[in-house]
């Protein structure tokens, strides 16, 4: 065994240092005032399909070392993948040199101290692989057969990943987080491709994914779509399901940086200076929150920052995260903060957390209940291609997708054409008249970046469908 912990494998091949060994060695090698080391080991497996057949697939492994070196108030960040043991010293030296050459970082703060070591710090990484689909793939094959027999085509994507992050600092922190993530997106189309329906689920391990049930729910929606109703652009009473609410609220969340609010360049800026924290945004007692320990959507309980930016600071690495209300009972309660921005704003340090949960008044019903109590309105399946139009109001535009249904007297009576909408999620909160029960959901637009959400359906009395989209 070499002094860097390199071992010899069964076939005489060199075995890399473990992530924990890499963290320790990198910290040891850094000659500057402080150092933060992150090692991310990721394994993924995926299946992609279209028209009841496989299109692409794959498994992949990656390992990334990020060295954040601190010299005075200067910081240097060097991140390299697949680092071999003999390259480690060069990576650390590059980060040290970058820190010495750097101008002072505005977010410079003492490194976080006093957080106890993660209990599973020393455990080996157990990667995911294609075997995670051993039971799911045949079930999907059965669903293809059922769809084929029923005149449907299935399209979609199944992905599972495990990311293990190891964080060590010269201030003594040794923290680890293992994040399993999984999702299935399932899209069913009629044989002529004119009717389309979508559903998606997030999962930690695919053990809880019932493909047959999901396919059946899509078959039901394709049946709804057999009756076509063309409607013009306009403002409609609209039921937004949890997935659509998640996409809008995630965008609101990403736009809630304290720095931008303080600089007068966001919807959360107070005219004349300061932020809108403390201002009522929603008429109903809506709460938008994050909680690293929330069941089913658990995420990292400490700050992981590979680079500094508007809403993150490398100096905050390891800062413990707890339950945080962003909007509490309808009132803006907190913004995305680093320790630096919190000092500027005089508000509590509330860093970003990798899940988002929305709830309304107690007793919210299911989406079916909300359909049943609708006299006339639109039921949306999901939203797509959401992009910001005006940051002052957080006006965003986007499309409805894979099924907009007309509800009359408590029942779905047919499918409506798609629309382009122009709406602000902030403004929308002030107009929502009903909030359903929260449930885990997969955002359609943003699930590449954000998968852990629990959202309710909401009723909007006057959703702005700006123009008709011919897409089906």
């Amino acid at each position, binding site marked *: 065994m070499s002094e860097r912990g390199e071992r010899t494998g069964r076939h005489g*091949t060199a075995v*890399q240092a473990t992530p924990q060994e890499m963290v320790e060695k990198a910290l040891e090698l850094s000659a500057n005032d402080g150092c933060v080391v992150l090692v991310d080991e990721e394994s*993924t497996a*995926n299946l992609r*399909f*279209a028209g009841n*057949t*496989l299109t*692409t*697939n*794959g*498994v*992949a492994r*990656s*390992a*990334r070392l990020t060295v954040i070196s601190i010299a005075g108030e200067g910081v240097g*960040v*060097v*991140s*390299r993948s*697949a680092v*071999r043991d003999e390259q480690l010293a060069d990576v650390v030296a*590059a980060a040290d040199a*970058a820190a010495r050459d*750097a*101008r*002072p*970082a505005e977010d410079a703060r003492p490194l976080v101290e006093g957080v106890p070591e993660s209990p599973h710090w020393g455990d080996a990484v157990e990667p995911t692989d*294609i*075997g995670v*689909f051993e039971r799911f793939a*045949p079930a999907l094959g059965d669903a293809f057969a059922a769809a084929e027999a029923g005149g449907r085509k299935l399209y979609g994507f199944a992905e599972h990943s495990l990311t293990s992050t190891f964080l060590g600092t010269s201030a003594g922190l040794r923290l680890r987080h293992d994040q399993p993530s999984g999702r299935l*997106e399932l*899209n069913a189309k009629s044989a002529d*491709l004119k009717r389309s329906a*979508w559903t998606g689920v997030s999962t930690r391990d695919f053990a809880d994914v019932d493909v047959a049930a999901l396919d059946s729910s899509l078959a039901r929606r394709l049946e709804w779509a057999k009756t076509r109703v063309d409607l013009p652009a306009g403002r409609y009473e609209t039921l937004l399901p949890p997935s659509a609410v998640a996409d809008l609220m995630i965008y609101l969340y990403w736009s809630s940086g304290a720095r931008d609010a303080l*600089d*007068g*360049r966001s919807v959360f800026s107070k005219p004349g200076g300061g932020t809108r924290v403390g201002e009522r945004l929603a008429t109903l007692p809506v709460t938008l929150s994050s909680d690293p320990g929330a069941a089913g959507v658990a995420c990292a309980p400490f700050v992981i920052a590979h*680079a500094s930016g508007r809403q993150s600071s490398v100096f905050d690495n390891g800062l413990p995260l707890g339950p945080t209300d962003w909007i509490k009972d309808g009132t803006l309660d907190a913004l995305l903060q680093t320790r630096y921005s919190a000092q500027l704003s005089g508000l509590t340090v509330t860093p970003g957390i990798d899940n988002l949960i929305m709830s309304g008044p107690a007793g919210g019903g299911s989406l079916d209940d909300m359909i049943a109590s609708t006299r006339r309105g639109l039921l949306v399946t999901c939203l*797509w*291609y959401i*992009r*910001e*139009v*005006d940051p*002052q109001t957080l*006006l965003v*535009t*986007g*499309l409805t*997708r894979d099924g907009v249904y007309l509800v009359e007297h408590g029942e779905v009576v047919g499918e409506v054409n798609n629309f*382009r909408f122009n709406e*602000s999620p902030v403004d929308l909160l002030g107009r929502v008249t009903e909030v359903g029960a929260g449930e885990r959901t997969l955002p359609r637009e943003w699930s590449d970046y954000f998968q852990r959400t629990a959202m309710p359906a909401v009723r909007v009395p006057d959703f*702005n469908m700006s*123009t008709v*989209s*011919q*897409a*089906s």
Partner: protein
Amino acid sequence: MRQIDPDFLDLPLRQLADAALQRARDLGAEHADFRLERVRAETLSLYDARLEGAMDADDLGYAVRVVKGGTWGFAAGIHLTPQAAATVAEQAVRVAEVSAPINREPIELAPEPVHSEVVWVSSYDVDPFDVPSADKVTLLADWSAGLLKGADHVSARLLQVKEQKFYADTAGTVTTQQRVRVHPALNAMKAHESGFDDMSTLAPPVGRGYEYLTGTGWDWQAELAALPELLAEKLAAPSVEAGDYDLVVDPSNLWLTIHESIGHATELDRALGYEAAYAGTSFATFDQLGELVYGSPVMNVTGDRTVTHGLSTIGYDDEGVQGQSFDIVKDGVLVGYQLDRRMALLKGLGRSNGCAFADSPGHMPIQRMANVSLAPAPGGPSTDELIAGVERGIYIVGDKSWSIDMQRYNFQFTGQRAYKISHGRLAGQLRDFAYQATTTDFWQSMEAVGGPETYVLGGAFNCGKGQPGQVAPVSHGCPSALFRGVRILNTVQEGGK
């Protein structure tokens, strides 16, 4: 021509490829390819002339793709030993076996001539990674300080990428390639009594080196000097009156409309439904090839992977197909799609036109966009001459917000600035505008395209597609162009205010 970096060539490229391809052959794969990549990226961001974030990262690894029993199998690894590469080949075959129950279309690839031992390097003068980061920060800080004299806040960002690829397949093709690209961008923001607004530089991302920041290919001094006054004019501008207008669209805005409404719409994988559950399909379905009237007769669009400094330009794609240039829309009619080898054979189109790309060693190649560009009119009008032909209209400059539906029909775009056109002349800026149209209506309303002197190669680093998500760089060249009767929205009114 520059040479490929020696430290990339020093990697055990051939040994790993040989080990992987041999193991795939031994396990019965009909086809196998091996791709080793190193992608290095440096990001620098400044806010109000102070360094806000810096990251120097790379992505090194390799992938083995096989066709076994008519089914794809793909696996990626990071350990640079022949034994590990052979193991990754075994994993790829295993993935094909697990996937076989859900594959109903046997995979076959269009033939491609063998390109043995070919080397390609993009056109650039100064490797951005040879320039000290401190020098880059100093330059961006100086530029930011200048803009701060006329703005409340200034953000500056510089992205730089060097991509190195080694590819080998069981047919005998072996390619080694290197390309660089840079994207500097600055944004100035200012508040006024009723809110705030901002303006970004128009300089496009390019397949050039650091020379792009020091006078080659863009006049930074001129653009930065003009920006504060343009922002001040925008802040004082009236809100647009919604309605139908004639538009003269500058290349700095039109490239993105081309990207969304032509580039993606003519990807054959979309037209065939492979992206149906994610990025979407296309109104330009395969049965309309050769017949669909996409636009007016002045519309001629090519796909190209060979143009100098293009972001999608490459010698050979990620299936070993040589880069080419091909027609997509000719005299307004759809005549071609962007292809990879599988789709080219599937649809009887002969040779692939070389549009397979993977953004990292961990991802499987999919069909990605060539540099899709709108041709200028030889001897055609200048931008001023196009404006002179408009009685009541708007001239739109610079890209900003964009959105288009999943079949590429309905789009909405804004821009950095818009000018009222009155009686053939510019009459000051307007605010709160967006244009909204259906793709074929829009392109059929294109009355004229500008001449070659109006042509600019725009583009983006970050075109997203596929699952797992992949980003690709792509350029789009276009002249200024005149469109009649396009719907303009007032975005404040759209927000219900």
